[in-house]
């Protein structure tokens, strides 16, 4: 019981682009690379599909960290989607930081379909970072907490 109380398991939402990062996650799986089960992957057609509201909504519903994974800039399946996503997310993260919300809780990583190892390493690192930060207190919705 005590152990259960003290070990904090973060909830991580990962928005993964269908063409690169989602396949990268598959590759990590087939290569038997381990990454924490705390990462919940949501497949999106492109990193550009991620509306800033999705990220806030994830935090509202209890996520402790949100990571967006897309194709490397220049490799977008839709040619330019991730360039737009890059600008949007930069501004959004900067705004979250401006409001005093821990900037380490959000991240963007470019992971290609061939980078299973990078996917696993990224997720391990991100989960470790968020675990260290602890529970998301600054952008939580108490009504959604059990």
């Amino acid at each position, binding site marked *: 019981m005590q152990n259960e109380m003290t070990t904090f398991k973060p909830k991580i939402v990962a928005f993964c682009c269908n063409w690169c990062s989602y396949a990268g996650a598959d590759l990590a799986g087939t290569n038997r690379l381990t990454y924490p089960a705390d990462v919940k992957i949501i497949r999106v057609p492109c990193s550009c599909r991620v509306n*800033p*509201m999705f990220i*806030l*909504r994830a*935090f*509202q519903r209890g996520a402790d960290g949100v990571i967006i994974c897309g194709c490397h*800039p*220049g490799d977008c399946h839709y040619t*330019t989607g991730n*360039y*737009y996503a*890059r*600008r*949007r*997310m*930069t*501004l*959004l*993260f*900067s*705004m*979250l*930081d*401006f*409001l*005093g*919300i*821990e*900037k*380490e809780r*959000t*991240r*963007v990583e470019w992971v290609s379909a061939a980078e299973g190892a990078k996917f696993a390493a990224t997720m391990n690192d991100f989960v470790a970072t968020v675990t260290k930060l602890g529970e998301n207190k*600054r*952008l*939580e*919705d*108490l*009504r959604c907490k059990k």
Partner: protein
Amino acid sequence: MQEMMIAKARELLKSGAVQRVLGWKAGEFAYDVEPAVFESAQELEKSFVYNDFCGSNLSKYLIAQSRKEGKTLVFLKPCDTYSFSQLLAEHRIVRENVYAIGIPCQGKTDGETLKGKGFTGILSAQCEGDTFTVHTLYGDKTAARADVLPERCLNCKSKKHMIYDELLGEDGEVLDSHRFDMVEKLEKMTPDERFAFWRGELSRCIRCNACRNVCPACTCEKCVFDNDASGIAQKAAADSFEENMFHIIRAFHVAGRCTDCGECSRVCPQNIPLHLLNRKFIKDINELYGAYQAGEDPDAKSPLTDYTMNDAEPGIVYHRGGNQ
């Protein structure tokens, strides 16, 4: 100035060049000036005013007025012309139906600010250079201009009209303002201090949506905040999350299109400095993607609908500015 404007409006109405006039109307008290549409010389004579309380930005009303038959005459202060120009670039206003007259502005105060400074029984107010004279029931009182102007006017970005058909008075210059000073001050705080600052401000929000309704960049006919299923349609204080989310999304939706007119802060009944959120986006855009001011150049591409191959990575946020 007011007489010149009424004379001009009467002349244009009489000649049939315009069908209606969009201006400001006197209210019950001197500081209760509100936007209004005038359709006859009598109405103009009766209640048209232009004074130091005419802070409201008329450009947003043109969206509806310019869709009516006939031309609308509108009076625009320099900062209103930025919004007008931006709305034209977004094809929200029918340009042919608008006759825009640029008018000078020396900064606008409002009743709340004056009352906050201890003025009561206000009859009228006048600005001459750096002195602000307030005529009250208890005699004339003066104050320094800097004391009675809101932050947006003290740090005015431009006295130059971006777009107009005709100009009354002199055109000014784009000013070298200190409008990002407050944002910089906040950036220099620690995240804990910033969080405490914004909690203190945003927790006062009563979700009246005035900031959204007045914003000349918020012109969607269907708004996400009106959608009950959006998860943030609740009223005030349902949860602190909603205040954060509402204000982040509101500012984000106008990022790259905000002309920094400061109307959001002016109308806020809780005096939340909302324009600081918009300015943060403007400052970030200027620093990361090159100087850009919405409304300045109608042909320029908005930074959020544009990109370059070598844009900064989102990770830059971890390294730049502010305390850790």
